[in-house]
């Protein structure tokens, strides 16, 4: 859009800054979700991009009054998850476990599907659509962990990574079936426009900033001040130790995926009014969040958030100065960071299997 502009003036500068920060905020959310999932489960969450795309496109599909295929997918995945739960419980058959499995794996997605059926097209309100999209993607995220990762939670990072890639490919393929190859845009959360001098701020950008900050604060409060958050962190540090003190590590993993999928869906819903999203856009968007997460060392939430803003800004400015090399610049940005990190951190002993 700005290609060929001769020089940087204040208007463009402000525009680039705003663009960079808005995108950066979304990358921050995705980066945080990846850090969260990695810390708790050691899964490098490649399907994060699909959560973004599913959230965005489900929301956009609901906005035009149609029923998104993702609602059905959630039900099917729930059934598979239920089968997994039954299989896992075959030796210690307890009514409570089965009831929980029925409630989570069957009742939850079916109710969401019923709600979608009942509401889609009839009550086309933005908050309703957002809530439905989040519920649908949350269910998918939860079941994804149950099906693809929980049975192999003890294996090496590499094996988890391969499973993660597999999940990404499958979900991307489903995305194409549900939403088609055409891109979609969704309605903005806010159409307000504030003008301060030469700076024009859209309500959508403000919503992005507000929600990002709120989520970061919420995550920080959750992990540092609640027992459940501490349990998740304990699982991250030492699975066996966590189990010995009574933390159910499989629940921690489900919780992490649930949070990550909701965060991904929120990110998608935030950006789909700004840019057209396709079924496969999520991958690249997710990877940029990933760059931020790596810079944060997959550990630190504040550094990840700051890094994400930097990624957004670098992207915005390189699209102005060297738009051809935008992606090259963004993705090679992390190499010097990685080198610095590996110089600073002593080498760790080989992976235990």
């Amino acid at each position, binding site marked *: 859009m700005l290609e060929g502009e001769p020089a940087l003036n204040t208007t463009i500068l402000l525009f680039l800054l705003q663009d960079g920060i808005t995108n950066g905020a979304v990358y921050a959310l995705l980066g945080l979700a990846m850090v969260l999932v*990695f810390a708790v489960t050691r899964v490098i969450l490649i399907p994060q991009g699909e959560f973004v795309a599913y959230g965005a496109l489900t929301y956009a599909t609901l906005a035009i009054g149609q029923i998104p295929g993702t609602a059905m997918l959630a039900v099917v995945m729930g059934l598979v998850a239920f089968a997994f739960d039954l299989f896992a419980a075959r030796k210690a058959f307890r009514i409570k476990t089965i009831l929980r499995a029925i409630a989570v794996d069957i009742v939850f997605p079916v109710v969401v599907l019923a709600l979608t059926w009942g509401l889609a097209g009839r009550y086309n309100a933005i908050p309703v659509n957002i809530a439905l999209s989040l519920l649908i993607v949350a269910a998918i995220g939860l079941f994804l962990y149950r099906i693809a990762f929980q049975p192999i939670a003890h294996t090496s990072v590499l094996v988890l990574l391969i499973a993660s*890639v597999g999940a990404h490919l499958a979900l991307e393929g489903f995305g194409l079936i549900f939403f088609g190859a055409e891109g979609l845009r969704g309605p903005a959360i806010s159409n307000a426009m504030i003008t301060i001098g030469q700076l024009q701020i859209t309500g959508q950008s403000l919503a992005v900033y507000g929600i990002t900050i709120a989520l970061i604060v919420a995550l920080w409060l959750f992990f540092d001040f609640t027992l459940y958050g501490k349990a998740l962190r304990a699982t991250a540090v030492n699975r066996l130790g966590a189990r010995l003190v009574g933390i159910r590590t499989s629940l921690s993993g489900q919780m992490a995926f649930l949070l990550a999928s909701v965060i991904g869906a929120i990110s998608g819903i935030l950006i789909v009014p700004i840019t057209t999203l396709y079924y496969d856009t999520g991958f690249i968007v997710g990877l940029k969040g990933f760059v931020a997460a790596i810079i944060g060392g997959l550990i630190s939430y504040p550094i990840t958030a700051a890094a994400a803003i930097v990624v957004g800004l670098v992207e915005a400015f390189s699209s102005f100065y060297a738009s051809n090399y935008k992606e090259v610049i963004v993705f090679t940005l992390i190499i010097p960071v990685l080198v610095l990190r590996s110089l600073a951190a002593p080498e760790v*002993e080989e992976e235990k299997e």
Partner: protein
Amino acid sequence: MTQRWPIVLFALVMAALPLIPEIPPFWLVLLNNIGLAALVAMGLVLLTGVGGLTSFGQAAFCGFGAYTTAVLSTAYGVSPWLTLPLALIVSGLAAVVLGLITVRLSGHYLPLGTLAWSLGLYYLFGKLEFIGRNDGISAIPPLEIGSWRMLDPGSIYYVIWIAVILSAVLTTNLLDSRTGRGIRALRRGHIAAEAFGVNTARAKLLVFIYAAVLAGLSGWLYAHFLRAVTPTPFGVHASIEYLFIAVVGGAGYIWGGVLGAVIVIVLKEILQSYLPLIFGGQGQLELIVFGLVLVALVHLAPGGVWPWLAGLLPFKRRPPRIDTSLQLAARPATELPPVLLQLEGARKQFGGVVAVNDVSFSVKPKEIVALIGPNGAGKSTTFNLITRVLDSSAGRIIVCGTDVAGTTPQQIARLGVARTFQHVKLIPDMTVLENVALGAHLRGRSGTFASMLRLDRGDEAKLLAEAGRQIERVGLKDQIDQLAGSLSLGQQRIVEIARALCVDPVLLLLDEPAAGLRHMEKQQLAALLRQLRDGGMSILLVEHDMGFVMDLADRIVVLDFGTKIAEGTPDAIKTNPDVIRAYLGAAA
């Protein structure tokens, strides 16, 4: 020592395939694609499965190979055969640069780092003018021998499969050698490998370059097979697929790479041609099924298909024959210094915890010194300071007259210091013989190329002979060809001692050698250690079994909470009130 005839048989079958009358050319295309993928996957086996370094960037190295030949043979008219070495060199150089940056990354940073530059390079391939941006380069000349132009899939087939089989043989040779043992120790025993003189950083870079050169070879073949290149096959998705191929086939096995390529490429072909017929062409169903199969596979067979298949095949690995008459050159008999090991105020702090608090003691030639103390006294940390696994915070440690400050574990091994570990660090999927031979690493000479070409056999036979002798000496002759991981913990400790003896050390550091041994075994061990001392070796050992220590040691150093509280002969230590207080907690 692998048998040769299965490979010869395989080569003959592959050579005969295109001669089948009426074979559809499409099959040959498929076989060519399998060969190309197998080359890359073989590199990944070495890098990821054996070396433990996961790379998401192998397709980018294919790109370097393919674009090198594409540019040179189209724009400059260079003969494709001449571009082959150049393509390999370019991929190798790219690997040196990227490897220097990424290989030293630890843990999960490495795969993430490769993912990053692989994405960057993919976009770069699509943007650079001289390689045709996203359109790529077309009209690449075919390979030619004399007047034979390899235009159809049936002719370049031979070039591709000769490359595959040759690479497999060379790689197998490499892994079954001195260098190969160093590589195989990277994944699950790099601290031990360092302690025996393997330069692990160099070994990592080596496998990284090796894998990249194989990928570059595949890229070169690809360019002359399809005769056009675009950036797409060199992107992250392709890299992920190569990784997938290696994992499906069995990431720890060279032939797993080939098998994985067969399975994945045939499966994809079937999915692409039949799924639309069943489900009516909607969407990218093959992508979904492919993804689901991937997830299912890591659930059902995280080790891959090859180990399972290899169990069914009739040929087995033959254990190597050892000719124990061969001798390695012994350490040159120089005058030993009057003090072999001298600690002067050695100190190690972890944050606020002082694990080793200004400890001083020495070990003289032909002496057994025991380091004892309650749990957490800092004994193993002292070992790690001496062998440079850890940096000391202050003080001096002098080994054979050399101040060890700033040296590496390899240099300590070179000085003639060998050690065992409190937590056994053997490579569980290598045999006892191979594990022990790792100890003789520094006494061999053969490098990578010699190993690949089997020019190392003389050297290798001597290393194995030495290893065999040491195994016999510690009394584990019957277990020599078993996997180290299958031994009992006590036996594994003994294997560690044999490995340390292979260094031909002047100073042996043993960390709890008697733990997990039965009474008789302990007596045999004590006898062996005395025999070693009488032969001129000095031994520093950490041990909790007081009976064992008191009978064996010439001198005892007692640590408590990181501080030396006593030193003296066993009899003096037994009656020392400080020692009794430290162990029993009360004034005696």
